[in-house]
């Protein structure tokens, strides 16, 4: 039901998430923000079991901050992604696993932009583009067709719009709006919310 997407460019990462918080067949909230700021240049997008998502994401968020306090510098996106995966993996074989699917997007001074795909079985993969949710089945092929590593920011937003239009067209559920953010060397930037044509 929930949807996450990330697209990596030459010097930025574009991410978007839907804004619906649902409880069975009811939309409880239409402006839910599913992105968690781990640091100035790292975002964690988190969907899955209600409660687990916020609990796990905030736990990771505070641990990243603690690392910053202890060591005087922030964790790189790669390190943060691996730390998150390790935590997920440790909990997986406990009596209380977290059922969450994640995208971690970040910008590193030396390595540049990075997008990491993580799922509830604690798989970790660095990818140029990725998506979570039922919507992923509909949009990954669009990304396969039109993605190029040298996308400009505007082209990436257009590609994102294509994906969301496809969801609006073919996905059975109505996802009325999407939060969009962009990470580059200057930090995290909020872009305009995407509202597919025909939604209220």
């Amino acid at each position: 039901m929930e949807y996450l997407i990330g697209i990596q460019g030459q010097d930025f990462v574009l991410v978007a998430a839907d804004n619906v918080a649902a409880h069975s067949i009811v939309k409880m909230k239409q402006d839910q923000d599913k992105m968690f700021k781990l640091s100035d240049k790292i975002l964690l997008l988190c969907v899955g079991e209600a409660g687990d998502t916020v609990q796990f994401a905030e736990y990771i968020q505070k641990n990243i901050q603690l690392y910053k306090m202890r060591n005087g510098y922030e964790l790189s996106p790669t390190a943060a992604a691996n730390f998150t995966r390790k935590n997920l993996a440790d909990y997986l074989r406990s009596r209380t696993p977290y059922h969450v699917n994640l995208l971690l997007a970040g910008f590193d001074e030396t390595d540049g932009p990075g997008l990491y795909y993580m799922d509830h079985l604690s798989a970790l993969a660095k990818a140029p583009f990725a998506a979570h949710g039922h919507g992923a089945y509909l949009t990954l092929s669009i990304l396969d067709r039109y993605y190029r590593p040298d996308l400009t920011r505007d082209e990436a937003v257009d590609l994102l719009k294509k994906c969301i239009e496809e969801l609006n067209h073919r996905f059975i559920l109505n996802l009325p709006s999407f939060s969009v953010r962009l990470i580059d060397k200057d930090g995290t930037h909020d872009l305009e919310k995407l509202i597919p044509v025909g939604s209220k």
Partner: protein
Amino acid sequence: MAARYDRAITVFSPDGHLFQVEYAQEAVKKGSTAVGIRGKDIVVLGVEKKSVAKLQEERTVRKICALDDHVCMAFAGLTADARIVINRARVECQSHRLTVEDPVTVEYITRHIATLKQVDCMQNTLRYTQSNGRRPFGISALIVGFDNDGTPRLYQTDPSGTYHAWKANSIGRSAKTVREFLEKNYTDEAIATDNEAIKLAIKALLEVVQSGGKNIELAVIRRNQPLKLLESKEIETLVAEIEKEKEEEAEKKKPKKST
């Protein structure tokens, strides 16, 4: 006489002393001086930098540490003990944010550190028979920062586990001298601006530090801004300003010679 009652933290002396705590306070008095000043829109921490051996890298042995974005502390005493306290405080700052979605107040984190110090003393009562007894933390800390509502705070803790709020204070080797200087010179005028407050901290340390600006480490927190460690160049500039002001004061006071 004291010898019989000073082994364990769990034992009172006949005249009501906890000798281990008092000995811990002695350890603090051996540490290098630190001074803290609470201004109107700024809080300042200054420490005396111990001179390093010739072959040692001048990597700053940081005695001023950030606990969170809005709180930091300086300590006097056993560096190793301080590391433990600082680590626990940092974890508590994040834990607090996680559970109540709010940053700690300066008083809260001070109370947590003080309780840590006291509880670790008391752990001895239970474990004395089983493990090698614990000793108190041999540090005093100056904790500064801004609360959520923008109020600046300065607190001091000591090995006994008590804490108090101060307008300005010092700990460590020449704490008494510095405190006396502060008692004389801490006025509303003296802390009117951020710069003045910083200069007051430097002046206080210059009273007891050997070779001037080179041996001073200074950090400030301004409201809604993270901790900033001053560079040695900035400190030198301020020291030069202070020297100039001192000279001007001396010139004014000199009686005019009649020829």
